[in-house]
């Protein structure tokens, strides 16, 4: 039963470097998955905290607050790099994409470096006790996600630098920036939970 009325759509654009692209939707959903994971981890943090009287346990120090607070600076600035690259992707502006992504990478790796320094100076391990476990887990998983996205940005930077790209790869640059915004944004509540929560609420 073949229909005889037709809708002629050959004039439609062949791509749309914007939030309308399916890849963007897919990436938002992946961020929902990661976000759910981090929210559950934060809930676990509070559960473990509320089931003991002394937090952290005696002998264990709270993680120092200086390094991670300083690390926020390259983290937030790196998001600007992502934004710059994303705008460049929409306009097919190759220098803007390169500048944005390289800026994002430099600042992102500075952030990772500071994170590494911070982890090296913790005086507890994941196997010390429940406090160590949950603190390390949150730090570790967020760091892993950040490194994964930096790797993705490296690949995209290489492709743009080699001039081996088309609209699909530009969409990739745009979507990659969204992932980075998510990783920066989700860090904010976790930063407060890990470093400030125990200091403000404190041990009784």
């Amino acid at each position, binding site marked *: *039963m*073949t*229909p*005889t*009325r*037709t*809708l*002629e*759509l*050959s*004039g*439609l*654009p*062949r*791509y*749309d470097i914007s939030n*309308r*692209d*399916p890849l963007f*939707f*897919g990436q938002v*959903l*992946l961020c*929902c*998955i*990661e976000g*759910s*994971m981090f929210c*559950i*981890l934060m809930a*676990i943090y509070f*559960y*473990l905290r509320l*089931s*003991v009287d002394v937090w952290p*346990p005696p002998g264990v120090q709270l993680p120092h607050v200086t390094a991670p607070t300083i690390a926020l600076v390259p983290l937030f600035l790196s998001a600007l790099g992502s934004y710059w690259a994303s705008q460049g992707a929409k306009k*097919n502006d190759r220098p803007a994409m390169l500048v944005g992504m390289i800026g994002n990478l430099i600042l992102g790796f500075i952030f990772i470096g500071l994170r590494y320094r911070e982890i090296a100076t913790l005086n507890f391990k*994941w*196997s*010390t*006790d*429940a*406090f*160590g*476990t*949950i603190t*390390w*887990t949150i730090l570790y*998983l967020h760091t892993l996600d950040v490194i*994964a996205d930096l*790797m993705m940005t490296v*690949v995209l930077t290489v*492709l743009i630098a080699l001039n*081996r*790209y*088309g*609209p*699909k*790869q530009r969409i*990739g640059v745009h979507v990659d920036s969204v992932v980075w915004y998510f990783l920066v944004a989700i860090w904010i509540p976790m930063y407060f939970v890990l470093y400030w929560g125990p200091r403000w609420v404190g041990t009784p």
Partner: protein
Amino acid sequence: MSTLAELPSPQLAAELEAEHQALRRVWNDRGGFWGWFSVTTHQAIGMRYIVTAFIFLLLGGVEALLMRFQLARPENTLLGPDLYNRIFTTHGTTMMFLFAVPVMEGMSVYLVPLMIGTRNVAFPRLNAFGYWMYLAGGLVLYGAAFFNALPNAGWFSYPPLSGPQYSPGKGVDVWAQMITFTEISAMCVAVEIIVTIFRMRAPGMSLNRIPLFCWGSLVQSFMVIFAMPSVMIASTVMLLNDRTIGTHFVNPAEGGDPLLYQHVFWFFGHPEVYIIFIPALGMISSILEADTRRGVLGYPAIVLSQVATAFIGFGLWVHHMFATGLPQIGEAYFTAASMMIAITTGIIIFCWIATLWSGRLRLTTALHFVFGFLFIFVIGGLTGVMLASIPLDLQEHDTYFVVAHFHYVLIGGALFPLFGAFHFWFPKFTGRMINETLGKITFWMLFIGFNVTFFPMHILGLNGMTRRIYTYPVEMGWGPANALATVGACIIALGGILFIANVLNSRKNGKVAGSDPWQAGTLEWAAASPPEPYNFVRLPVVNGRYPLWLPAEERAAVTGMRTDKREILITASVDAEPQFLHVLPSTTIWPFLAALGATIGLVGSILTFSWYYVAVVLAGIGLLGWFWPRRPLEQEG
């Protein structure tokens, strides 16, 4: 730009033939050995999910039969405690993770693009990758049998029993990591179903016109997105790490809490059963519409009820923990929510009964399974209301009453609709009609066998028979009911064998079906049987909820799309206005390679934590090949 034009018939026929040939060339999966690993069409991948899941159903069924034979007599010695514990754990794990969720996903992957009038899912390579991860997970679990490493702590593996001290060996590690595989697979399908349904619908198919089956897939996919991370945390982050690298999530000696595991697991575990059940609701709606010749009554009510069920389903999990001594006030809230969810599912059932009352019934095998569902699932739902009441739950929890309840809701609520769906969509999948007489006999065997097996278990539970016991003394008086249940299990098995025989025979000898043997209303029946890999020569334009029930003059199709590439149409999320064209990837082996890399690493991580990094590196290489742009690059402008 876009115009509506009338075209004369002979010219139309010639154009369509040319388009059909071109599309076939572009959409055909590569044959051969490597071609099999490179498939990215949704029909092939959907069918792989369904067949693989069915094989796991059979394996789980064999495990069930072994359990039933052991329990048929008091103090039986067929299976010792160790073997019995491994078998019941593997049975539950197989059914929940390797059968129930993947088969529903497979049905969605196969049917959703057809129902919304597009050619593939939004992310074909992710689809392939998800399937390979699922298969790998199943192979990991059953491969463990060869190393005497089948898990033995139950399908939800409560610590401390499942912890390093009381479950030494690799069994529970295998269990925990298998979940990583199946949950990655489920999340892949969920992501692509949501994006496909929102962004790739036929022009004119606004959200209030999508089939209820698609609503079911959509709601279920959102539940997967928000629930599955929880099981990953419970099994991999908490339990596996406590077992292998000395974390203390659930170790009370160092500030952990065994109950934390239960909370995090059941936060996933309860939505999980709705993840299994809600797609089945979609199947029932589809079957009912075709076999009552009318659209289901109360489409908006059913949609809202499904959405409400999904939301409320996230707020019930503590009803699995009523015996743990949590504060009463908190528990009372979960009683209320657990009972209230019966309203949303009840409304859906009432709408269906009203549909049955006012429709013109055609008593196919599929409709038999719908009636079977109504009988069995309503019993299961009502025993669920009983279990929601804390005083009653304190007697019934962890007894055969609960075993009866969840088999009634899972088999009644998911398996019966699924078998109905198999008989209903068989012509679409294979191009042939399935034998209806044998189908009806299958139904009666499954229906009678099921009730004979599981109804006595309600009474056994009330009479004190606890779950997960490998034997029981003769004085308890549980022997006769157990023997009866075993007889029922044999009847189910025979019904299953008959079904397989019917499928295999009908594929070869069944009557040729044509596109629309049921004169149904939704778009999948406009495609060929079985569908061409591109589904429709021209993508449909839709003017109502039941496009095929509209008169021919009101139907329209899209023209102007390329037939030399795998091009599909992106439309607006709510009202499906055409927005732009999009080319999907073709056959590629990289999803398989990425899955292979991830599998190697994850299997290694069962033994040593550092193999996670191997997984990341190998999967990363796979992703690099996956996404590396091939020349010629898509043109700009």
